[in-house]
């Protein structure tokens, strides 16, 4: 965690240095006033992935849901093992700034041994208001598992963005 804070501080310093360079250049060509401009920034950090863990499919189609709080609901006929987590993202920026957050509403997963599955995706909030320490949002989803779904490792990608207005 300390390492992390250090990094952030360095990032801030880098920005300040860049900003100063930029305004120094402007100053030379325009008015001759030296100013240092600190730019407003936004950072997006992923702190956990949306994980459904391992599922053993049953004779009938069913679903596994992971809430935005990370709680799993294993549908009838399925066996779910391992630890599920919701996707978690941290946003930092100007205190009080409202950031719109969201992403794809579904994702298709392809199996390593063939077959596909789909998962719907849900987001904890359409926007977050940043506190002095930032804010966070979570991604949950519901995975549709077919009857006797082919075994294998299923993978897919989906888009998540934090948007300034």
């Amino acid at each position, binding site marked *: 965690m300390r*390492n992390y804070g250090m*990094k*952030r501080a360095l*990032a801030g310093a*880098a*920005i300040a240095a*860049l900003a100063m360079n*930029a305004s120094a250049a402007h100053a030379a060509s325009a008015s001759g006033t030296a100013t240092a401009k600190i*730019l*407003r*920034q*936004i*950072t*997006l*950090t992923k*702190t*956990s*992935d*949306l*994980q*459904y*863990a*391992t599922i*053993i*499919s049953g004779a009938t189609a069913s679903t596994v849901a992971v809430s935005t709080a990370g709680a799993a609901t294993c549908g009838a006929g399925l*066996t779910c*093992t391992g630890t599920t987590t919701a*996707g978690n*993202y941290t946003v930092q920026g100007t205190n*009080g*700034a*409202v950031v*719109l957050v*969201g*992403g794809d509403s579904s*994702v298709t*997963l392809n199996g*390593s*041994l063939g077959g596909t*599955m789909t998962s719907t995706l849900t987001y904890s*909030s*359409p*926007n977050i*208001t940043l506190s002095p320490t930032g804010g966070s949002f979570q991604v949950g989803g519901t995975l549709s*598992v077919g009857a006797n*779904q082919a*075994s*294998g*490792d*299923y993978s*897919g*990608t*989906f*888009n*998540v*963005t*934090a*948007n*300034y*207005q």
Partner: protein
Amino acid sequence: MLRFLRAFGLFTAAALGTAASPALASGDLLVAPTRVILDGSRGTEVVLNNIGTEPATYRISLEIKRMTAEGGLNEIAEENVTAAERAALDMIVFSPRRVTLPPNQPQVVRVGVRLPEGTPPGEYRAHMLFRAVPDAAPATGEPKPASEGVSIALTPIYGITIPVIVRVGDLGAEASIGEAWVSDTQDGPAFNFDLTRTGSRSVYGDIEVTRPGTPEPLLVARGIAVYPEVGARKVSLRVPDELAAKLKGPVHIRYTEDREIGGGTIDEAERVVK
């Protein structure tokens, strides 16, 4: 001694490596500033920094988003854009479009505008998207035997968008604050109010909600925009339970321009929050 130090170095590297791996932080990013307005031909710079613990490749692109009456931003596929949105995509020039950065390495992205002859006055806008190109799906080792069920790996491609606004001609806009109320959403209470806009450009600023007689604001929300594609939007802000209770009753709502351009009042109103 040297060998000891080297061994120690390796040890710390390994320790850091294990400490960092649970965060899976490849592609974390910083973008500054958070909004770009271009009027005239002079360009500007946006800084992108890799704040993750691993090198990452970032892609920078422009996309069109339209504001909804609910205050969200909907992404519009390139084949569905209007002529004015197409013009925005074409007039905003930037470089680079792809960059690989080691951890904590900032990169300047130059943003400029190339206005075609005879561009009609108006506000043109696109949203600049910065996002990491994900690493190839991690090798999962041996394929699972049939008895072991299915395992799932979802890789998010996550990024940040900031608006890039080009203003052509002499534009103006006004906004007014409508009704305010507290509602319950599935994720807790929210403070809501309507914001209407007239004129030829967007409005942007900060909201401050105060109780008459109390200097300390109850709520501050910065960076609220109403874009030209909507005449009105709802502003809905998630608030903690105790604040939701406090907000009910008479309040003063003030919408001010960005502090960086003076912070003048756009509109203010006395409302009784239901």
